[in-house]
């Protein structure tokens, strides 16, 4: 089921494995949860489905905590469903005091879930300072302050590193620079060339990260140096930030507008 577990069992049963061989175990099982419980295929042109999605508007507190440079809007220039895709577009423009606009939507109060397989098929943008993400926040985030509420970043990506994405968890004692994270890189392709599937399988005391058909990480309570806060309901966020502490500021070579294309979001259990 998981690469780490397989390795461990191989180690523990070393001699037995020697006799029966490892060949069947070398094939990872990327996904096990196959019952579809929620999906947005983005098939209806216009604004995102309001029964599922809400907007974050503005610049948040201190650039959403990261000194981000964009102003999030709900305008169709920044976010629209078109031709079977959700399009989140970052634009370089002066808007209410910010130098860029973009969009961020979330499912809080509309879709919240504990455990499951959360997956999206996305074609990513590119360029220095571009920071799109597909992530989850603890549904209790209004009453429990971050990072105690927990954050599961299914996919983050920096536009100046177009071959690499990373998956991360933040919690009490392991947030920001101390968060638990792992990169996944393509050797002969890029994430802005075509669509890729980004997902997690999340259950009691584990989160498995995968890209396309590759399981690249598992995080369990043993991997975090603090309380495991991921046995509660979480909600989904999709956004594209511009600038900020992590990606740095766009430079003269950053092409605008930049668009993140989301083909679908699906949740299984």
């Amino acid at each position: 089921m998981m690469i780490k577990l397989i390795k461990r069992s191989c180690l523990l049963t070393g001699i037995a494995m020697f006799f029966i061989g490892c060949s069947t175990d070398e094939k990872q099982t990327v996904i096990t949860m196959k019952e579809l419980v929620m999906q947005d295929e983005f098939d209806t042109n216009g604004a995102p489905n309001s029964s599922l999605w809400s907007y974050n508007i503005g610049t948040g507190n201190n650039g959403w905590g990261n000194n981000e440079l964009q102003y999030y809007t709900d305008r169709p220039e920044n976010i629209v469903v078109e031709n079977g895709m959700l399009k989140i577009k970052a634009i370089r423009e002066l808007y209410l005091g910010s130098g860029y606009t973009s969009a961020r939507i979330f499912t809080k109060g509309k879709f919240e879930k504990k455990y499951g397989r959360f997956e999206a098929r996305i074609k990513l943008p590119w360029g220095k300072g571009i920071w799109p993400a597909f992530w989850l926040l603890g549904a209790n985030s209004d009453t429990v302050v971050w990072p105690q509420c927990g954050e599961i970043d299914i996919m983050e990506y920096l536009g100046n590193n177009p071959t690499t994405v990373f998956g991360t968890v933040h919690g009490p004692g392991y947030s920001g620079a101390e968060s638990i994270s792992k990169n996944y890189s393509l050797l002969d392709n890029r994430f802005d060339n075509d669509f890729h599937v980004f997902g997690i399988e999340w259950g009691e005391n584990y989160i498995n990260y995968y890209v396309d058909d590759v399981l690249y990480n598992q995080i369990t309570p043993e991997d975090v140096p603090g309380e495991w806060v991921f046995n509660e309901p979480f909600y989904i966020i999709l956004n594209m930030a511009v600038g900020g502490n992590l990606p740095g500021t766009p430079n003269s070579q950053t092409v605008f507008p930049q668009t993140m294309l989301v083909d679908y979001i699906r949740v299984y259990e």
Partner: protein
Amino acid sequence: MKNRKINYFKKSLLLLIVMITAINCDRELSDDATLSGFSKNGEIFTDNFIGMGSDFYFPYGDSKFTAFSVDTDEAYKGNASIRFDVPNANDPQGSYAGGIFRVEGAGRDLTGYDALTFWAKASQGVTVAEFGFGEDFFPNQFITTMRNVSVGTAWTKYIIPIPDASRLLQERGMFRYAAGSNGTNGAGYTIWIDELRFEKLGTIAHGQASIMNGNNQALTTFVGVTSNVDGVIATFNLPTGVDQAVSISPSYLEFSSSNPAVASVDDAGVVTSLSAGTAVITATMNGVAATGSLTINCVGTFIHAPIPTRNQANVISIFSDTYNNVPVNYYNGYWQPWQTTVSNDFSVLGDNILNYTIFNFVGIEFSNPTINANSMTGIHLDVFIPGPVAPGRQLRVLVVDFGANGVFGGGDDTRHSTTFTAPTLVSQAWIPIEIPFSAMPLLLSRSHLAQIILEGGDGSVLYADNIYFYN
């Protein structure tokens, strides 16, 4: 293009024969038999040159020929590297290092690759003028060049994107370089190159070309004038997130004309003006529109000056396509500070025309050597005023002799100025001007003729052709 088709035809015939033979022999055709038949090998140098033949290095004519060697003491990988010893600027054998590495024999099919890659380091941090590929000395159809490349003292991988690999069906120009010592105060240094190959990286994206260096340029032309699309640059995003610009041959692009009846454009970006009107030349690379454009404003059929009829033996020609011209220092001295005249000379179907724009006055000098015109009896020139001739407009033609000392000044120079006005001066027609020396009393000698000066311009345009002394 024609040659390529013929080659394919021959190859197809050959293949057909092979197939027939194979069928007759009741054997299956080998999997290796493909229509192209050109090597798809991407390797150029690992520890040795690979598939390059024995005669593959061709240094540039004025470079130091011995700059290139194979170094078996330095390698990024394995046990050898390519070594370039860039000479000192004052090296009598050549002031820089540069050349091409060309496959001996048939070219390679590089359509399966997207970049030329190599590892490089230098004996000190330097900026290397050019690395690239696609130069084969003829026809140089698909040159790609990365300029001003920073090379440090540690081995570093370099990526030169292929602008459109589908063009490289039989490329011989595998690698080229040019490195001098402008940035090192004339001091030489060494560059090592290793693991030189074409690769399919799959991580190069967002190719965007520009023509005319990204500018929207306009050009006034006549029917039959050819102009070139140039300043072709392509930018690609590398897997490192860095944008890499390369200078490329126009042949990598697809060109189109907004008005093919006015101006046509060929595969190499050569634009031919066909009729009066305006046409905008634009380009695409891999289907993506290039920035920049060339607007052709064709003003119609050029009226050629009458072809001179005198024999060569009876003229001393300064500027004419009919005669052999004597040495001329310049056709526009750009005499400061008062001259505004700019030269925009052009050629229409092989007829070269002096085109003086913003014309107030201009000097033509032929002082090295000066002309002894004692056997001549006068001066001829044809001028053309495309714009209107304002009332009172003058054209003054001055002939200058530098005197016995043969150089400007010294108190022995003499000159005569002849003034022309309407009705001699007309618009939109060639004006033949002939002035006998007998009508130039202030020109005291014609043993050391050295200058012709045209004056009286009003800031408009003046064409000139067929300037010669005659008898």
